[in-house]
């Protein structure tokens, strides 16, 4: 047997040598196929590892468990219906926790819930007036002085803007604004501030306030969780500023990239954007986008004038005047306007000056670590709920510091999440039913509203009520409202966190390679609990789906390539077989059986396939090794998440090489079956007569 194989290999090699052109064509195709398989599988598995690292170890866990009756699919990063998923609920985490944790290979379970909440920032003028009122309430004269100056600065800027607008078109409204702004800048008004701060503040808030710009609202996708457990389990989440949320405290951790790329002071964000593009090789001179971005920064720059505390203005003016070679007496707003006329020559210098001189003196973010912010959310009960929450820290996902997707989720304690999620309760339903009953309202259908409301026998019910007396109407009938003690709401009993509602449960595995088996086991446990278990790819929505899509596309491409290869190989082999009819006839004439001829042709291709596969796989390994060295850049944010960082450093596994070799051999052999069959049919007599 061994001798036969040796003979077949020998004959195969001889034949390959003898038919060099065919060998080169067929071998080239097989080499390319093996190369492609090795590289594709290596890249695919590297991408999957990268994505897994991005999401599994930062937010999703290996498996997520949620309500089997959920209307929507769980999508931790948000799906196409951002923030509106109907995920059902798990009424009590503690009741299911133990059953899930008892499943083999489960390392940790973490309760979770998702809600979308808004964070409002008042306009600069309202902000200053709010602060001024607080300063007045506590009698902080220093603050009153500074904030009064800030209000005047804003009024001055608004007056300048009003004058520019009036130069184009003057309306009654703009004239009225001018009068109000001039009064806001008058000494008379600020003298009143000393005599009657309450009345003056009322005037400022009601008359001057509406002239300021509107506030902003940023939306945050919150992941409510048991913070101490989360921090232990998800080790890629790193707090880069502040601290972890202490047990039993209402608190939030905000993604750094969300702060930097969504919430930061607009002028700074514009400058950051230009800086980033320049580091990628763009220039202001050639990029319209960068020019426009700088123009936006310039237009927004007057805000700096009134965001700066008055005592800091001289230092900023000095620095800007020096940079611009202008006299220090120049007003700040024109200096800022000139300063933001940037080009490639001065950009980096002025960027540094901005962050060294201006940045530290103004608030670059709407809130900072340690602040208490107000989160507002439309709850499932139909009512809007607002909660005060302390910002304990800023986090990044290790390796994805710059990714807005990775930092888009803000982590909040589970109790706050439950308040903002606002599950409808039986108590509320009962209260609403009682209110409705008390009102005695009859239901009216839209379609028959006119007939129902105006078609009866009664005239329009204009009733007459005469109110006696003329006393003050806010006496004993004044409504009594339950008092709110806000300080007590900032803490809770950590031991009760597990008792309440969650939307999903993250499961981290001891051995992630046993994902499929553990998922199956968990599904069995979840079924009777009315829950479902999904892997991290399904649980992370479009991000997790990307790897599945990439895999499907690559596998399809490889399949099509091998199909084409089979056809080409088959044709080449048929042609080669026909050219060798006399050779096969001679072999048959000297005693070779059909089986031997068949084996000879197949072995010949197998030898070629093995050698080509080896060569192709070697090239693939070399290519992936090179890629590992240089890294594949992720130009888009989404790719950063998919790659698990700003660059993908693919690695090749032995299984990838084996897959390449096996695939090449299978394709080669499949393509040879028909030509081999042709070869076995050659009649020695016919072949020796020289006929095809």
């Amino acid at each position, binding site marked *: 047997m061994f001798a036969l194989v040796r003979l077949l290999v020998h004959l195969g090699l001889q034949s390959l040598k003898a038919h060099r052109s065919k060998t080169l064509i067929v071998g080239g195709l097989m080499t390319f196929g093996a190369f492609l398989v090795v590289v594709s599988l290596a890249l695919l598995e590297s991408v999957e590892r990268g994505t897994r690292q991005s999401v599994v170890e930062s937010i999703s866990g290996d498996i997520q468990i949620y309500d089997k009756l959920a209307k929507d699919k769980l999508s931790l990063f948000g799906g196409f219906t951002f923030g509106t998923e109907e995920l059902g609920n798990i009424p009590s985490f503690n009741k299911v926790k133990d059953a899930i944790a008892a499943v083999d290979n489960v390392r940790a379970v973490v309760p979770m819930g998702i809600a979308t909440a*808004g964070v409002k920032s008042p306009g600069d003028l309202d902000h200053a007036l*709010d602060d001024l009122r607080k300063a007045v309430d506590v009698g902080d004269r220093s603050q009153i002085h500074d904030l009064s100056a800030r209000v005047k600065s804003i009024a001055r800027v608004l007056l300048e803007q009003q004058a520019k607008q009036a130069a184009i078109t003057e309306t009654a409204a703009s004239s009225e604004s001018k009068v109000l702004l001039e009064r806001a800048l008058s000494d008379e008004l600020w003298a009143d501030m000393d005599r009657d701060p309450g009345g003056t503040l*009322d005037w400022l*808030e*009601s*008359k001057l*306030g*509406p002239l300021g710009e*509107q*506030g902003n609202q940023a939306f945050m996708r919150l992941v409510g969780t048991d913070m101490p457990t989360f921090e232990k389990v998800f080790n890629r989440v790193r707090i880069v500023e502040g601290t972890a949320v202490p047990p039993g405290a209402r608190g939030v951790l905000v993604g750094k990239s969300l702060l930097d790329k969504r919430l930061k002071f607009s002028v700074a964000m514009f400058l950051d954007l230009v800086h980033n593009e320049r580091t990628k090789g763009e220039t202001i001179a050639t990029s319209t986008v960068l020019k426009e971005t700088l123009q936006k920064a310039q237009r927004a720059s007057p805000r700096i004038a009134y965001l700066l505390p008055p005592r800091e203005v001289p230092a900023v003016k000095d620095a800007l005047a020096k940079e611009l070679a202008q006299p220090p007496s120049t007003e700040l707003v024109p200096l800022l306007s000139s300063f933001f006329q940037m080009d490639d020559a001065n950009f980096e210098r002025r960027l540094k000056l901005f962050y060294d001189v201006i940045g530290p003196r103004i608030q670059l973010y709407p809130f900072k670590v340690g602040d208490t912010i*107000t989160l*507002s959310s*439309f709850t499932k*009960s*139909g*009512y*809007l*709920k*607002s*909660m*005060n929450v302390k910002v304990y820290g800023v986090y990044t996902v290790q390796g994805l510091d710059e990714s807005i997707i990775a930092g888009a989720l803000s982590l909040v304690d589970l109790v706050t999440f439950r308040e903002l999620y606002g599950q*409808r309760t039986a108590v*509320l339903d009962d*209260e*609403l039913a009682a*209110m*409705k009953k008390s*009102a005695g*309202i009859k239901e*009216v259908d*839209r379609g028959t*509203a*006119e*007939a129902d*409301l*105006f*078609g*009866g026998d009664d*005239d*329009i*019910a*204009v*009733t*007459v*009520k*005469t*109110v006696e*007396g*003329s*006393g*003050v*109407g*806010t006496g004993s009938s004044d*409504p009594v*409202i*339950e*008092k*709110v003690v*806000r300080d007590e*709401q900032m803490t809770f009993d950590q031991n009760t966190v597990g008792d309440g509602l969650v939307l999903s449960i993250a499961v981290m595995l001891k051995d992630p390679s046993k994902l499929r088996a553990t998922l199956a086991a968990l599904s069995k446990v979840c079924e009777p609990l009315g829950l479902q278990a999904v892997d991290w790819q399904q649980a992370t929505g479009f991000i997790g789906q990307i790897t599945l899509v990439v895999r499907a596309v690559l596998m399809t491409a490889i399949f099509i390539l091998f199909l084409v290869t089979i056809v080409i190989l088959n044709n080449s082999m048929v042609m080669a077989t026909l050219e060798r009819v006399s050779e096969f006839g001679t072999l048959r004439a000297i005693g070779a059986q059909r089986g031997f001829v068949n084996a000879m042709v197949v072995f010949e291709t197998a030898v070629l396939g093995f050698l080509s596969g080896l060569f192709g796989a070697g090239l693939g390994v070399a290519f992936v090794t090179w890629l590992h060295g240089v890294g594949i850049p992720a130009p888009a944010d989404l790719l950063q998440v998919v790659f698990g960082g700003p660059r993908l450093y693919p690695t090749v596994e032995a299984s990838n090489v084996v897959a390449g070799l096996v695939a090449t051999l299978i394709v080669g052999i499949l393509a040879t079956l028909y030509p081999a069959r042709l070869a076995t049919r050659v009649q020695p007599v016919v072949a020796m007569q020289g006929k095809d």
Partner: protein
Amino acid sequence: MSLSPNILGALCALVAVASPLAVAAPTDVPQPGVLGGPPGGGAVPGEADLVQMLKVVDDRQANTGDYRSIAYLEQKEKGKADTAFEVVFYRRDADDKLMILFTKPKTEAGKGYLRVDKNLFLYDPTVGKWERRTERERIGGTNSNRQDFDESRLAVEYTPKFVAMEKLGKHDVTHMTLSMKEGVDVAFPTVELYIDKDGNILKREDKALSGKLLRTTYYPKWNRIYSESKKGDVYIPGEIRIFDEVEKGNSTLIQIRETDLRPLDANLFTKAWLESKSR
């Protein structure tokens, strides 16, 4: 930002209808029954007649003194559970001030709105913060905005055009189309108004500039209350039903009761007063 936006829209509508400010002298106020139909025994009324009808509508709702009332509001949104509120309204038309204090359900109690001049502030006791609602804001994406908080000034803001004498249920109504006057800033550029012979608005259709119908409001009940300050009657809707014509299936119901026109506490329309209710 502390209550359902559509409910807020309903509140706005309520105030728009029931908010009197521009008060004509009592002697100028046409009395009920003057809108017996088009003049001239069925002849098409001219613009002057229609303007006079609108003045009647405006003046009947006008008050010069204070106002306090309780309102029940119910909001239905397609695909969502119904929500409801009970609020107390306080109004001082002489100063153009308004306070809305939420009393029920318990989760909403203590929240409130304060309007001073053209400013609308919202207070939430849970967070202890005031928030400015801007004049031009489409509140929560609803079809109400700052305009809804203004007094009824139909005769000042719109130019009427007679459409027809029609039947609304069993009632004879004058149907007119109101078009926004040039230079006037209103929420709805076109309004279809249906007024009964006494000057009660029974139906109102608010339209966009394109003519698209945005919402239909019915006023099936009106209350007449004697105002000492006005020395005359003030007409206040007892029930308002608003149907959203864009988001079909959404509707709001408002019931007003226990109206009191006696003078209110002088310090009521302040932030401190509203804060004190829950502190």
